[in-house]
């Protein structure tokens, strides 16, 4: 089946973005590469796990940030060592970094399956609250149980990486390409899963859970498995995050971080997985620019909080386009093509 003009345009645009991403280390400053683009890729992966559940499973999860943090904490506790000048927080087990990497991803995925099993039978606001509860428990656990780190950060985690990963402290271009490869792999994985029988059933459950159940599909099991896959993706983001930051602290899985990830997904567009990276990029750039420019601009900061300004910008985007930035694209396309059924086209696109 040949692709339509919209799909062709999107693929062309996607190829351009990918080409820019590959060339970025030679095009942008080292700060932009490190602080903006790597961060975009990592939070984009985390937001993709949220959008995957939302767009294709009908579940808006507030536990994804916690899963990112759990993976980071597990890795930090397992690989750091208590040596002179070394880390002092957490278990400091000093295990082999490869073993730590695999275990952190596997254990986080298992925890994600448990979260999913708990929440899979609920819907809407109840699902939201259950996943939020899981996230808050994780935050309080790592913030309060000092053996696992406590309030202070576990730092220096990026000094303990497997040999095949290389130096994550000094070679930030290498980290960028690793994050880029993982981001592309996650994108392709989600696209692939959606075309499998499991993915099709998941989308059926999203649209008609009762009908799918009456057809004999185990709705709760499919939702739990989807949550497990999303947890795996979040775990990968967590590993990259702790390599990028070098540290992990309770703030990485706190409520503000949870809301920030949700905002990224909403800004990008909750209906398509591509929105994850677009939303992450927008949020990170806006946050960076506001922090850089507002204090020196002499503008009065409403309520003394930078977050107020950042929030106002987000509000404006959401008011203009409730479907996020990708929603604007859908509308523009519909207008150009004289197609008034933009939402229909979008819903169709979302099932791909």
């Amino acid at each position, binding site marked *: 089946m040949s692709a339509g003009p919209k799909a062709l345009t999107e693929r062309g645009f996607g190829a351009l973005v990918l080409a820019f991403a590959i060339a970025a280390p030679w095009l942008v*400053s*080292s*700060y*932009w590469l*490190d*602080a903006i683009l790597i961060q975009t890729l990592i939070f984009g992966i985390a937001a993709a796990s949220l959008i995957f559940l939302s767009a294709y499973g009908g579940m808006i999860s507030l536990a994804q940030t916690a899963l990112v943090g759990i993976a980071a904490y597990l890795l930090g506790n397992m690989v750091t060592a208590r040596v*002179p*000048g*070394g880390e*002092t927080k957490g278990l400091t087990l000093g295990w082999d970094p490869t073993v730590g990497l695999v275990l952190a991803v596997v254990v986080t995925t298992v925890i994600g399956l448990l979260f999913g099993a708990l929440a899979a039978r609920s819907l809407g606001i109840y699902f939201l609250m259950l996943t939020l509860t899981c996230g808050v428990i994780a935050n*309080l656990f790592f*913030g*309060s149980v*000092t053996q696992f780190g*406590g*309030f*202070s*950060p576990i*730092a*220096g985690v990026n000094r303990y990486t497997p040999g095949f990963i290389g130096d994550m*402290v*000094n070679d930030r271009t290498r980290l960028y390409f690793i994050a880029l490869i993982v981001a592309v792999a996650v994108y392709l994985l989600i696209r692939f899963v959606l075309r499998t029988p499991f993915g099709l059933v998941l989308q059926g459950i999203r649209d008609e859970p009762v009908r799918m159940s009456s057809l004999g599909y185990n709705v709760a099991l499919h939702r739990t498995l989807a949550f497990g896959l999303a947890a795996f993706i979040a775990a990968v983001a967590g590993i990259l995050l702790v390599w990028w*930051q*070098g*540290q992990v*602290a309770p*703030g*990485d899985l*706190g409520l503000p*971080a949870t809301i920030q990830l949700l905002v990224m997904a909403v800004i990008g567009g909750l209906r398509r997985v591509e929105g994850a990276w677009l939303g992450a990029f927008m949020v990170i750039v806006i946050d*960076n620019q506001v*922090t*850089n420019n507002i*204090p*020196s601009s002499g503008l009065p900061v409403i309520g*003394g*909080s*930078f*977050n107020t300004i950042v929030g106002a910008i987000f509000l404006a985007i959401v008011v203009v386009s409730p479907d996020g930035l990708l929603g604007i694209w859908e509308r523009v396309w519909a207008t150009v093509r004289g197609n008034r059924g933009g939402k229909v086209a979008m819903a169709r696109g979302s099932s791909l």
Partner: protein
Amino acid sequence: MSRIRQQWKLLVLLATAAVATVAVSASIAATPPGVKLAIMSDCKGAFAFGYELDIGGAQAALAKYAGGKAKNPNKPSAGMTGITIGGTKVDIVGYGCGDDTAPTALKEVRRLMEQLDADVMVGPLSGDEAVVVANYAKDHPDKTFIIGTAGSQDPTMQIAPPNLFRYHGDGAQWNAGIGEIAYRKLGWRKAAIIMDDYSFGWTSAGGIIADFCAVGGQITKRVFPPLNTTDYAPYVRQLPAPGGVDGYFWVVGGTGTGASLTAFEQAYGPLDPKQHIGNLFFAFLGADKVVAPKVVGSYVGGAGTGPGLQTAQAKAYEAALNAVYPKLPANDLFVYNYYNAAWALVQGLTASKGEIGAALQKGMPKTLKTGYSVSNGGMIKLDSRRQAMTDQYQLQLVKNADGSVGPVVVAYVPGVDQSFGGLFKPSSPPPGRTQPACKKVKTPWQGKIREVKNGKITNAVIK
């Protein structure tokens, strides 16, 4: 014809690109050489009120010793111009906006040091942020970091990168002497301690425990409410009842100080000032309105500053500070510590002749004449891990003539080092829930703490 037009377009494009390249190169070439300085503080979170205090403290020193001109004497963050050290121009390229959490601290340090390309940073404000900065410094040896105000021990004890300097005491040092005062002046032998469950809480409590146990006191119970606890009743109930111990040490900060004392009142009745000693949270950081009036007469652990100290050096410092920023409280720990950090930087850059990196780090002063220093010729001294050995002042809350409640200096503790006479070591675990253990040891200042009366250090030793 169309081919010619295309060639013209290409030519115009190339010419534009060339002009733009030359313009950008010219603008880069026109950038004056100098040192790029960043000041890191908190503008969000629990310590957001420290933003202007920190910036003001640092900039006042730059005004006094490096010719800086404040843009607005009532708002330090408005900026400062004209800073020159030994002929080298110093530009303040940015102010860091932390929120007392590690992730934001890291984000802000990166923004300042990488995006704004600062060579030197003065800051941060709090303990966990300093742990972040110390780890960042380890990975960026060409940049220089001078901690603004931070009480955690790890940055200069366990992590201690060679490009990180701290010209004030850590949270444990600030409390040197307060345990001995409890033991000798109040007659405490057994005490309980309640401490915030994070690095500053542990470090601050570590100083109290080490000092109290060093003279023979016993800590019979340690309680750890998580940071940002709102209901302290369960934690206060874990403390022994007033008959079970001689007194209580409080290391609970932020809104928790007042809330935890109220919970104690509700559980065990009115507070007896002779039974309660607090760390700096009883006297500083907004304590004067709610907390201090509850415990007038209590002794309070210090923060390295000497409120009301009547020495020529203290008066000179206070005058210099207020000449630049008249509304800043000179004896505030944020103001004072950032002032000293910036002054040390001025001396370092003078010694390095404006060079940054390793030359600056080599040139950073090993001693520093600071406002409230008395021993060692009025100088603080850096140890081998670039951590200050410095005098400390212990305080008491008193009612002023106008009815307000505030701290006055009652004890002078000379030359306090970070190791507490060898109790804390780089190889030993940093302060935690069970660290340090309660041990009777000989601290260098034991038996040498002198009474301070009406702001004057007397020869009378506290017995």
